[in-house]
């Protein structure tokens, strides 16, 4: 009846996950109870859960990422403490628990923190920057989000029901095959990634189509803000790379569920092919994450330097070059598997070639600052911090692209330090910069600068204190994923790294405090102009938070830095403006399709993991029925009448004109 599921699935013998799970469960129940008692449930259902508004979905993506950042972060804290204490002892985490933690940490941080964070920001901002009312497929957008949330949910369920993979975040066979991982851990891993992978693919298709087909009048390709370009590149990579992940995990699942022989030791299976395929996805994945961050930095550096982006065409070229070359380098993740020297050298050189466009980007940001008038608001601090940190990560990255050097550094703590260097220093700093930069746009008030700056400095220093020792300990020969060790020389560095983790944690706490303080002081921090940073692209042309239809009139773009041009134009024409004819606006109706679909996907995923076949069929039928019901509905749009649009817009224009006149008088 319940497949493999019974009471022994709950780890009563392991207090840490049980207590953690209980605390989280109680917290969730408390929040739910509060929501229900206060009567917020209908509001949440109407305005958020069923929302197909790209801004709302973007915010929910970021919320999911932030919550999962805390989960992945606590895994990181536990790992650092374990490695600091587990010298010549077992530490406080037994191997079967420690191995789950590092696997979960990697999986969560990549798939459920970094991905949703950048997808959320793209969702939130790209339609605004392109001057359009929504993404190409609003309902699918909601489906994509909820499927991502399903994946995250399943990973967390594994904490208390069953176990998570103990194989590392890429679940290399044969360790992840049924004979060496007979538990449900790898199934949790694979199914949650399959489900969230569908969500990611949907988001990718959506954003590619949005950028290519939905730009407002006059928004030519070479007038798009840099963030739109990097969004395009990143989502093209999603569309091209995620199917590879899906196929690879499907093969692993076929091996595990139906006794196929893709990667088994027996009957001619080939483990090396898993490495090959998973990295054919895995390397582009890195650029899927970092390209949007590059876009965010481009926007931020240009805005806060008060200049257009230096070398815009170069940047576009560099972005698209990275997009294509990132598909030609995946072998560098397994130089030490024994391919011949020609293959190793060619892929090594291809990997280095990516450093060229990346280097060009750094220089272009540098020259954007040159001759600027730089305001060091929090987003700009994150950007400068990123530029310094990312160069170091780039250096060590090129270093491990040299095959002979990689023969020593592969899988070492040096490598761990390297990819944290680029992912924290690149993606996470970028996500934070974008969060600080666009928060006023999303919510209509700014974030507290003092707490924001404190968060930056603690995170920045904490990062160095944590990861520089890992570089050193890697040079001392330490390899990754060690639950304990006996080498005395490593110990002091691990203790310093654990201390750095504490500093990083303070940074995260400051980030939370910033949010709390800002929400408390939201009236004082209110932004009535819609353009708090003196921005240059179209998202600042509407007010904050933007109305559901984004723009009363789809803007007419006349050049690069569209909104900057409009502002300059408005000043020149001394605010002469003609009253325009308002029109009705059609917007997509909200739909519970995404939520219901994810509900069935959760059931199906859970049933698949535990081999509860009747429930799998039920979930599948439910998901199909959901889509048929969605396809059957007669009205998928509603109309906002012209008078309503006019009323809302006139208020905005007054605010804006006062802003421009103030700016003009300076």
């Amino acid at each position, binding site marked *: 009846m319940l497949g493999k599921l019974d009471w022994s699935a709950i780890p009563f013998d392991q207090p840490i996950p049980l207590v953690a799970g209980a605390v989280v469960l109680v917290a969730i129940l408390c929040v739910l109870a509060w929501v229900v008692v206060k009567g917020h449930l209908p509001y949440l259902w109407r305005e958020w859960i069923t929302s197909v508004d790209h801004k709302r979905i973007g915010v929910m993506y970021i919320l999911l990422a932030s919550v999962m950042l805390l989960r992945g972060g606590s895994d990181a804290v536990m790992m650092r403490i374990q490695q600091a204490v587990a010298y010549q002892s077992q530490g406080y985490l037994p191997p079967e628990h420690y191995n789950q933690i590092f696997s979960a940490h990697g999986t969560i941080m990549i798939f459920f923190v970094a991905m949703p964070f950048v997808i959320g920001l793209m969702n939130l901002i790209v339609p605004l920057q392109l001057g359009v009312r929504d993404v190409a497929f609003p309902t699918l957008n909601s489906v994509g989000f909820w499927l991502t949330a399903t994946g995250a949910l399943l990973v967390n369920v594994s904490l208390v029901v069953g176990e998570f993979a103990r194989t590392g975040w890429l679940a290399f066979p044969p360790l992840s095959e049924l004979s060496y991982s007979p538990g449900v851990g790898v199934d949790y891993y694979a199914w949650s990634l399959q489900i969230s992978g569908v969500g990611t693919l949907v988001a990718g*298709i959506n954003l590619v189509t949005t950028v290519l087909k*939905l730009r407002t*009048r*006059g928004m030519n390709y070479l007038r798009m803000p840099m963030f739109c370009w990097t969004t395009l590149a990143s989502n093209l990579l999603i569309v091209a790379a995620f199917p590879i992940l899906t*196929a690879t995990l499907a*093969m692993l699942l076929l091996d595990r569920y139906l006794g196929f022989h893709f990667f088994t030791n027996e009957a001619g299976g080939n483990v090396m*092919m898993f490495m090959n395929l998973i990295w054919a996805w895995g390397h582009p994945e890195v650029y899927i994450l970092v390209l949007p961050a590059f876009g965010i930095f481009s926007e931020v550096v240009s805005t806060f330097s008060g200049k257009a982006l230096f070398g815009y065409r170069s940047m576009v070229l560099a972005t698209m070059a990275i997009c294509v070359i990132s598909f030609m380098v995946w072998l560098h993740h397994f130089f030490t598997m024994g391919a011949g020297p020609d293959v190793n050298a060619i892929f090594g050189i291809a990997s280095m070639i990516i450093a060229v466009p990346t280097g060009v980007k750094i220089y272009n940001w540098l020259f954007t600052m040159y001759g600027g008038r730089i305001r060091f608001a929090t987003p700009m601090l994150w950007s400068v911090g990123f530029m310094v940190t990312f160069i170091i990560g780039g250096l060590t990255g090129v270093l491990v692209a040299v095959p002979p050097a990689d023969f020593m550094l592969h899988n070492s703590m040096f490598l761990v330090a390297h990819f944290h260097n680029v992912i924290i220093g690149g993606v996470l700093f970028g996500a934070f910069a974008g969060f600080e930069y666009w928060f006023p746009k999303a919510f209509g008030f700014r974030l507290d600068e003092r707490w924001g700056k404190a968060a930056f400095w603690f995170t920045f220093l904490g990062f160095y204190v944590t990861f520089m020792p890992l570089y050193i300990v890697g040079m001392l020969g330490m390899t990754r994923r060690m639950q304990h060790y006996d080498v005395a020389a490593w110990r002091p560095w691990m203790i310093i790294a654990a201390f750095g983790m504490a500093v990083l944690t303070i940074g995260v706490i400051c980030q939370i405090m910033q949010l709390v303080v800002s929400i408390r002081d939201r009236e004082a921090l209110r932004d009535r102009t819609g353009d708090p940073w003196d921005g240059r692209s179209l998202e600042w042309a509407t007010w904050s938070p933007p109305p559901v239809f984004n723009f009363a009139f789809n803007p007419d773009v006349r050049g690069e830095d569209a909104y900057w041009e409009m502002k300059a134009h408005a000043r020149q024409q001394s605010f002469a403006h003609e009253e325009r004819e308002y029109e009705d606006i059609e917007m997509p109706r909200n739909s519970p399709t995404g939520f219901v679909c994810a509900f069935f996907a959760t059931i199906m995923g859970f049933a698949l993991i535990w081999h509860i076949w009747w429930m799998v069929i039920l979930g599948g039928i439910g998901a*199909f029925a959901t889509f048929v019901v969605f396809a059957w509905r*007669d009205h998928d749009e509603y109309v906002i009448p012209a008078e309503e649009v006019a009323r809302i817009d006139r208020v905005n224009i007054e605010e804006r004109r006062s802003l421009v006149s103030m700016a003009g008088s300076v």
Partner: protein
Amino acid sequence: MAMTATADHVHADPHHIGRVIEHPGPAPKRIVTAYGFWIFLLSDIVMFSCFFAAYAVLSGQTAGGPRGSEIFEQRNVAIETVCLLLSSFTCGMASIAADVRNRFWFYLGMAVTCVLGLIFLAIEFREFADLVARGYGPSRSAFLTAFFSLVGCHGLHVSAGILWLLTMMAQVFAKGFRADILRRMMCFALFWHALDIIWVAVFSVVYLLGSAP
């Protein structure tokens, strides 16, 4: 006027050289939907390419089991191919019928497409069942694993296509040729034709190249 406009425009786009062709604004829904679906199809083809790559790598790993030339039956494959080709044609007829709002020809085209698809699936199913019965199931060797996965993945797509096709017919029956239903019809036609393209690769690479002794 032209002068000022030029000056204005140069000012606006410092990186532009020469004339600028203005983007006309958001595309109509029909184009957006079909284009999005086109992107999805390309990603689906990338997924197939992984199974093709796996097949290429594993096709020699028979582990003492049968080789391709010992189990493939060209006659069946030829019938399957003709079925799919004809169904692509009838699917095209159905989409023309949908465009001219002709219900009869639409139903007929879709029904024939459905029947041809079912014949294809039946032949494929019989082939698989026969192999499993002879002990040559996917667990027998890595070659058979790759073969069953690649061909089975295409078969699953055809099954999903038939489910979609029936849903499509039911929608037209219940709602008529509404704009959104026509958009879906366009996507369905793209999907069905794309499956045909993948089948061309399958029968060439798997069955014909694999039959070589």
